[in-house]
Structure formats: C-alpha cells, structure tokens
C-alpha cells in the first residue's frame, strides 16, 4: 500500500523527476477557486456543512454561498431532538461558526446528556464525540456547567486503550490498533484536560507525551523529506487513507499540545515534512480530502510545537538571455507572511558534478514591496546547465528558531537556460579508401539552405558542427540526432558524438548497407539538436542524399512492415458496375422481310401453276353422304394444320398429341370413307 502511495506521490509531485527536491508552494488562489467549485452550498449532512464552512473560514473566501439559513434550521433540529452524539457534535461545530439562535436551555439539557454518555461510553469514537461536543458547548456558551467531575477517571479510561507503539484501539474489546484512532484519542484527551474541574495528574500527561513521541517514531517518510502517517492495518471495517490518518494525528497532537502547559519536543523537520505532505497533494478533488488538507494546514499554521515555513520558488527555470532574477518566497503554509528572516544561498553546484561549486554563501536581498527574496544577478560563472541551489533560512529573531521549522538546508534544482551558438556546420562525401573529399559543403544551420548530395556504398558521409554556450564553452546537448529518411518512410537515426568541441558523425555506407536494407534512392537528412537548457533547440532538414547501394542478395533481411495510414485504410471503395453480355447480332428486319417474301414466292408460283393447269373440283362427290365425308375430311386436315399453328403459338406437346390422336382417328374414319368412295368411282369409271 505504502509502496503504491509512494508511486502516486512521485506522480503528484511530478516535478520531482530530478533527484533533488522541489517544494510545493503554499496554498494559493487556485485552492480558493477550487474550494468555491467544490463546496457549492449543497450538503446532505451537517458534517459536510461544517467542512464547507470551515474551509471557507480558513481560506477567507468572500463570495461563499449563503447556507446559514438552511444549516441553522438543521442545527436547531439536531440539538433539540435526541439525535446521536455524532450529529450533536457536528451541529455544535456548525453553530460555532454560524452562531445560530439556540435557546440556552437546550445546551444545558445536552450537557447533562453528554456527561452521562462520557461516563457510560465504552468506545473511543463515542467518547471523542461526546467530549468534543462538551468542549464546543464550553466555547459557545459561558453559563453552562460542562466540567467533568471525574476527569481523571475519563482520562484514564481513554488512556487505557493506548498501545505501546503510540497507537490506539477503538474499544477495549477490539484488539486492532490504529493510527487514526490515536488522533481521535489525543483530541479527546485534550478535551478532557480542558474540561477537567481539577488539575489532571502531571504524570499521566507525561505518559501521553511519550505516546506522541512513539507515534512519531512510526511516521512514514519519502526521500524528499515528506512525512506522513499511514494506517498499517487495512482489514478494518472503514479504511482510512493516509491523508485522513495524517490529518487526524495532526488534529489530535495539536489539540493536545495546545492545552498542556509544557512543550512536546517534536522534531521540526517532521512537522515541516507533514506540511510538505499536505501541500504536495495539490488540490484534492474530493470535498473530504480538501477539508482534511486545509484544516490540517490551518492547524500547522498556528501551533505550539513548531510552525513550518515553506520556501518556494515561483520559477526554477532561468534564462540567461532574458537576464531573469532568482526569486525565493518564504511563507507559512497558508501563504501568509513569514517573520523577518534572511534567505541565504549556501552554495550552488552543477547537478552532475557535486564538487563544482559556483556560488558560495550569498545572502539574498529582501524585496519588501513584493515580499520576495531576490538574487539580483547571476554571477558571471553561471553558464547554462542544471544546477542544485542550496538555500537556508536564517531567522532574524534567534528565539524564533524554536517556534518555526525551517527545514535546514533546502536543495532546489535550477535550470539555467540560454541560447546556444551553432557554428561550423559542414557536410561532406568522402571516398572511402583514400579519405579524400569528394564533395564538401558548408551549411549555415540558422538559415534554410539545403544541400543535395549523391554517394554510393563505397563512400562515406561526414557531418560536423560545433556548439558553444553563451560563455563560450563547449556544449553537449542531450539530444543530437542525425536522421536519414528514405522515400518509403524507413528511418535511420544516428546519435552524433562529440570529440572535444566538435560534433562529428561519419557514416560509412559500406557497413550500413544491410542496416539500410539495400534500399537505394533518395534519403532526406534531418538534424535534431535539443537540450533542456538550450533555448534554441531545433529540428532542421539539411537536404537529401542520393544513395546508390548494391542489389540486395537473396538472404538479405526483409524490410520491416510500416504502420498503415489509418486515413487511407478506411473510406469508400471504387464502385463496380456489372458488364452485361452483349446481345447476339441479328440481321436487320428488312432483310428478314425480304427473305420472307422470297420464301412465299414458290407458294404463289404453286397457286399460279394450279390455275394455269386449270384445276377444278369436278370430281367432288355429288351425292350427300360422300360430300359430307369429303368436307369433314378436309376440315379435319385443316384442323390438324390449325393445331400445328396453335402448337407453335401456345399449346404444349401433351395437349397437341392428345388432340392429334383424336383428330387422327376421326380423319382415319372419314378419310377411309371418302377415299374408298373416290376409289370405287374411279374403278367404275375405268371399268365403264
């Protein structure tokens, strides 16, 4: 758990990527605007109402939502009825801020009830609420008797729940000890002391003091000097985060130390570390967390143990070109002015070389009008780079050292940036074996000139340039990349190394053919130079080189796949229209008609021929019966022919065959009759 929290806080501090410490600044206006957003005047319980009101009170927010009417109504409701102690407690707390009109008799009734609860209570939480409520009544109304008769006994019963490591149990039948409970217990004990009708035994107070010291032994710590309390036992019914645990302890310890006569000797750096913890959280987005943070900071702001002073720098990045001033601000945690003091710059050194001290013991000037301490100008030997500045707060009033926690020497990482001069850029193609220069071109890296080069795999490419700091020293940037980019978007990046002042890279293409996947063609050249302290970091195209590389052998490594462009991957496809089969070619209609008329010609010829021959129907039988048979026979033939036509037009084969069968029988019969009749007449004619 603590490990994860560690990770988280590293994240919250965010700026502390460099090993040295960045101190979060005191509570600022950002907190105030966040508070107005977070506590928008709607609350479901008096506890929430109290948290909102208390935050507004501490941060002195002017345009707070007016909730007094609704809140007071709830307060009166809760005080009147026999509501649980917790509700009473928060009702009294809200009343303490809003000063609602409550009948004094009500307080008397409550006080009697609470006193009974104190003596009966078996759990720590009940005691905490009832004693807390009594203390609140004592503060709000003067004429109510709230003093505890058996303060010693109550004190003892709370103390009985304490553990040897300074933590407390919630109740006697609950073996789990908790840091959160320790905070509650200390606050309750403080209440008992202030409510005691007679003095509490000093030896008892002393053991509690020891408990506090033991509790502070179990404090957790980060590398940057942040201290916090965390609940070790997680299996309990209600899990308390480190923020609520720490703020509970702070509330308890400060309440306790403010009521006892002596002083508790807590180390100042731990108190400062707690302040750092609360400030390091930033602006919580949760109302409860926000309240815990702000209230704990308010308690730390004004306590009897030691008051943390926060040294913060509005800026840690300084530009040599703009001649910035180094400013340091010292405030209390809530951002109010510090006592008279001097900020001393003990020393400053390069973060990569601890021995290279560039500034030593220098006092910063105090600018009264802005309330900041200023180092007017950087000494001349401060060049661009990353430094660690070590500050110390020296209080003018020596007695104040016991009241204030200043945190000793404070390490702050400082970036000093400047403009780096780029010069002597040269790009050349060399012949490999002789080393003679084939083509050499000078480049002005500040301009936009680009070069066009061509080379083959037996040659080398040399590129060199120089970097100088404003003080004329050689500068080594964090990022000096030389990039070759092929037309197919395959990139090759080389780090430009330096020898002394000069940066130089020599690309021997013979050794690189495999790395280049034997890809000949145009390579664009890009140079990227950048550093955290370089104000003119740049990415600049230098031109291009046409490379002629040998053909790839069969075993050569395949080109790695390139990512697909998502914009090209999607989108509509090309439309497809079906190509229909072309209809068969046909002769023109006129031709067919012509042929039709030609085809009909023989028939016409046949008819003409018959007329010419002088055909007649004289042989047609004259008697009635054969004539009828003849007519029927020819009608039958006509019917068969007609059937053929119908077959062609619409009928199917089955109907046609059926009809043909019937017609055939009929034709046989009438045909036989007429043909035999004709045969007999013709034989009669012959014989006659």
């Amino acid at each position, binding site marked *: *758990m603590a490990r*994860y*929290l560690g*990770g*988280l806080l590293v*994240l*919250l501090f*965010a*700026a502390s*990527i*460099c090993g040295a410490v960045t101190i979060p600044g005191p509570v600022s206006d950002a907190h105030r605007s*966040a508070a107005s957003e977070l506590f928008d005047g709607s609350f479901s319980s008096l506890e929430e109402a109290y948290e909102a009101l208390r935050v507004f009170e501490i941060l002195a927010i002017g345009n707070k939502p007016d909730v007094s009417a609704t809140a007071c109504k709830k307060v009166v409701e809760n005080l009147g009825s026999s509501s649980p102690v917790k509700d009473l407690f928060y009702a009294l707390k809200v009343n303490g801020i809003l000063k609602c009109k409550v009948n004094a008799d009500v307080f008397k009734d409550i006080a009697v009830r609470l006193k009974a609860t104190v003596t009966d209570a078996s759990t720590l939480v009940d005691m905490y609420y009832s004693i807390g409520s009594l203390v609140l009544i004592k503060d709000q109304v003067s004429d109510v008797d709230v003093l505890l008769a058996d303060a010693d006994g109550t004190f003892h019963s709370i103390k009985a729940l304490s553990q040897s490591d300074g933590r407390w149990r919630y109740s006697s039948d609950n073996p789990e000890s908790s840091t959160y409970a320790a905070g509650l217990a200390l606050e309750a004990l403080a209440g008992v002391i202030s409510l005691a009708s007679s003095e509490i035994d000093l030896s008892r107070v002393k053991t509690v003091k020891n408990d506090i010291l033991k509790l502070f032994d179990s404090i957790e710590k980060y590398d940057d000097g942040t201290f916090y309390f965390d609940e070790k036992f997680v299996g309990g019914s209600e899990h308390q*985060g480190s*923020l609520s645990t720490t703020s509970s302890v702070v509330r308890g310890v400060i309440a306790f130390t403010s009521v006892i006569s002596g002083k508790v000797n807590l180390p100042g750096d731990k108190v400062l570390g707690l302040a750092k913890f609360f400030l390091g*959280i*930033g*602006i*919580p*987005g*949760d109302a409860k967390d926000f309240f815990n943070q702000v209230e704990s900071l308010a308690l730390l702001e004004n306590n009897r143990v030691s008051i943390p002073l926060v040294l913060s*720098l509005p800026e840690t*990045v300084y530009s040599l070109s703009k001649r910035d001033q180094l400013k340091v601000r010292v405030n209390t945690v809530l951002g109010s002015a510090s006592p008279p003091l001097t900020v001393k710059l003990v020393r400053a050194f390069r973060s990569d070389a601890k021995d290279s001290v560039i500034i030593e013991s220098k006092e910063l000037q105090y600018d009264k009008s802005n309330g900041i301490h200023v180092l007017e100008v950087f000494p001349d030997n401060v060049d661009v780079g*990353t430094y660690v500045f070590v500050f110390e707060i020296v209080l003018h009033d020596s007695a104040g050292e016991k009241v204030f926690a200043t945190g000793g020497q404070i390490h702050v*990482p400082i*970036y000093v940036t400047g403009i780096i001069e780029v010069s002597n850029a040269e790009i050349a193609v060399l012949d490999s074996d002789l080393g003679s220069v084939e083509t050499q071109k000078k480049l002005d890296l500040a301009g936009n000139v680009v070069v066009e080069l061509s080379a083959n795999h037996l040659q080398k490419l040399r590129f060199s340039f120089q970097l100088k700091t404003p003080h004329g020293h050689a500068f080594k940037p964090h990022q000096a*990349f030389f990039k070759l980019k092929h037309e197919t978007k395959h990139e090759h*990046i080389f*780090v430009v190394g330096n020898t002394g002042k000069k940066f130089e890279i020599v690309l021997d293409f013979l050794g690189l053919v495999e790395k280049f996947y034997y890809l000949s063609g145009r390579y664009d050249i890009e140079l*990227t130079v*950048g550093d*955290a302290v*370089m104000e003119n*970091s*740049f*990415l600049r195209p230098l031109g291009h080189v046409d490379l002629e590389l040998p053909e790839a052998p069969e075993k050569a490594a395949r080109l790695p*796949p*390139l*990512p697909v462009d*998502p914009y090209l991957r*999607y989108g*509509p496809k090309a439309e*497809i*229209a*079906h190509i*229909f089969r072309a209809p068969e070619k*046909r002769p023109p209609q006129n031709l*067919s*008609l012509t*042929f*039709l008329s*030609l*085809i*009909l010609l023989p*028939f016409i010829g046949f008819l003409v021929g*018959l007329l010419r021959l002088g*055909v007649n129907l*004289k*042989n047609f039988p004259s008697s009635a019966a054969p004539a009828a048979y*003849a007519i029927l026979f020819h009608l039958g033939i006509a019917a068969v022919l007609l059937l053929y*036509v119908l077959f062609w037009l619409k009928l199917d084969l089955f109907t046609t065959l059926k009809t043909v069968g019937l017609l055939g029988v009929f034709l046989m019969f009438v045909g036989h009759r007429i043909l035999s009749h004709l045969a007999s007449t013709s034989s009669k004619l012959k014989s006659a």
Partner: protein
Amino acid sequence: MSKLIFVFLAFIPLLCTSFSPERPSDRRVLVLLDDFAVKSSHSLFFNSLKSRGFDLHFHLADDPKIALQRYGQYLYDALILFSPTIERFGGSVDAAAILDFVDSGHDLIVAADSNASDLIREIAVECGVDFDEDPASMVVDHSGYAVSATEGDHTLIASDDFIKSDVILGSKKIEAPVLFQGIGHSLNPTNSLVLKALSASPSAFSANPKSKLTSPPSLTGSSISFVSVIQARNNARILISGSLSMFSNRFFRSGVQKAGSPTKHEKSGNEQFFTELSKWVFHERGHLKAVHMQHHKVGEANEPAIYRINDDLEFSVEIFEWSGTSWEPYVADDVQVQFYMMSPYVLKTLSTNGKGRYFTSFKVPDVYGVFQFKVEYEKLGYTSLSLSKQIPVRPFRHNEYERFIPAAYPYYGAAFSMMAGFFIFTAVHLYSK
C-alpha cells in the same frame, strides 16, 4: 407474496440498465486504482463520467474481492485501469481475464506511466501497443514542450497532434494543446486496428531524461504515440495512455503554452480531449446500427424470394447512430452496398435522404447463382457494420425468351406456306378432273 413479485417485476427494468444492443453506452464501470488518492486527485475526470450517468465502482487494484464476472455474467460494462504500478491484481482478475473481458465486447481504459508494471505492459502489448522497454524512460521533446516556470526538463509536453476524426474527438476543435508527461509507446505495425489519438512531434524522443544518450533511442519522432485508441473487431473500444497524470485535476486545470508559440491558453486541452475521448470509448458516439435492410423489384413493394437475371431492383437500408441517449439518423455519403457472389458483381454507393435511409437501384447481373446483398461499412472511429442477405438469381425460364424474332420470319413463312400448299394440294389432287 404477489405484491413482492410485483415489486420485483417493477424493478426489472432498473436492473437491466446494463449494456444491450439497444442501448450500447456502458453503464457500470469498474475503476481499479493504485491508491484511493487518485479518486480525489483525478476527480474532474471521474465526475464528468458520473455526470453522464455512469455508475463508477472504485476498488484498489490489489483488493482481493474484485471480480469481473460472477456465474458467467460480467458485472461491469467497462474497466478503467488507473493502476500503472500494479504487479498483480487481487481476486481472480489477471491479464487474461481482462483480455477476455474485452473479447466479450467490453471497453477498457488503461493509463500507464513511467515505471509501468509488466502486467500493464502485457495488457498493452496484447492490444498492439508497445511501451518503451526502459522503465525509467519518459518522452522528452526539446522543441514541443509546455512552457513552465518550474519544470525545466522538457518532459511536460504540450501536444496538439490529434487524430483527425470528428467521431473520436467530437466535432468541436480542441484549441488548446494537451499536456502529457509519461512514457511513450509505439504501435505494432501489424495491428491495423490501433490508432494514434495523440502523437508526439517529430522532435520528440523517448529516453531517460537524466542519463546521457549513447545509442539512438528506440522510439523517436512522430511514431511515438501518447494516447492510442483501438476498436476491436467486436466493436470493443480500448484507450491506452502513457500517462496517468494526463487525467489528473492538476493537468485538467493547468494553463498551457507550447514552446515557441505566443498564445497562452487558460486551460489545457486535457479535459476536453478526455471527455470527448471517453464518450467515444464508452460508446456514446460512433456506434451505428443498421435496420430494415430491404430490396424489391422496381415497381413492386414486396421482397421477392428470387430474382431473375437482368431484373431491375431497389435496395434500401436504414442506419442510425447512438448519441448516448437515443438513436439519431446517421448521415454520410460513403455507405456502399455490394451484390456479391464470391466477389462483388455490383458495388454501389448509396444515396441518403438525410433521415437515416440509404437507397439505390441497379440491374441484377446476367449471371445466375446465389448472391448476397452486403453492406460492409467501416469508417474511422465508427463501429463497423456488416450485414448480408442472401438472394438467389435464376436465368430466364424457357418461355421467358423472346418469341417471333423477325430474323426467323422466313422460316415461319416457309412452314406455313408449305402447310397451306399441302391443304390446297390435297383438295386439288382428290377432286380435280
């Protein structure tokens, strides 16, 4: 008893507010944290989700009680992993369980950070995202950093290289750059589903800002992605970010000025970026459905069981987009239909009436077989639509061919003149004297 049943029945609609095809937005979201402090330090992000109706369940990532499913039913519709350092989840949850969760169509948001654990990296790799292997590395950009008086190492980056997609990032342009501080990742080139939602500038690189560079960093330039999104084939959506602090209140509220740019923005683009992006991830936008796929012959209203080759047909389909609360008509000009058998025979872009209806008409090809109407719609950021409807196509029946072709008139003439001649001949032959 009957009253009890009635009450239970009355509550069923409330119990069933979870993911369904009819309401594709997520409802129940499990948030796994390294520490509960994240709940407070990232509250603006969580509050924006809550105000949109999501039901967030916060748990510590190592809580032994967490479970994604019970009795084979998933308990959540989406998962937010804000636990970059977790080495092992509590309970039954592990990388495989999370991938199964995604495979069953649920959404995922993963925030890593420098020092991201192997577990988080493993989940990311499965999604096609490779984080820089050096655990101490961060993305550094000496040209595109965010100007800050207190952060001088240029790891706080202001990026405005967004994915160009209105559906993913909303139609309102994000004016202010987005702040980023964390670990960079690259996309697996073989994974075509993963997209860079926010990418680095060409001058960026990923390395340990404190140590000297001796060899070229593995990730450089605009191939570094800060935030990537994935839409899986089952329309599950994943967001992977290399920074947890991007989501924090501090970054949401912070002002931003990009190095080299004179404009100073009051507020960084983070809030807008992640609000819009989370709308997309949780299916409040870009989720399409297609209904009423219909086709019929021109001039008819009913859908035939079979088409004949060369028929003229009309095709229509209705497409709607989920807006988070209701289905709105989807308007686009690139929806296409395919008439498909082994390969598309016809591929036509549909016209729309602007109210969700898409339609076209075309002639059935003169090839018979079993065809399909196919609408395969894939657009950047939208869920893909894949609909198909099978329809057979037959050739002409024997009696559907053309009769009385003029070219055949000579044959007809020959036959009938023959028949007429025969009839006359019989009469003449029998009765002529």
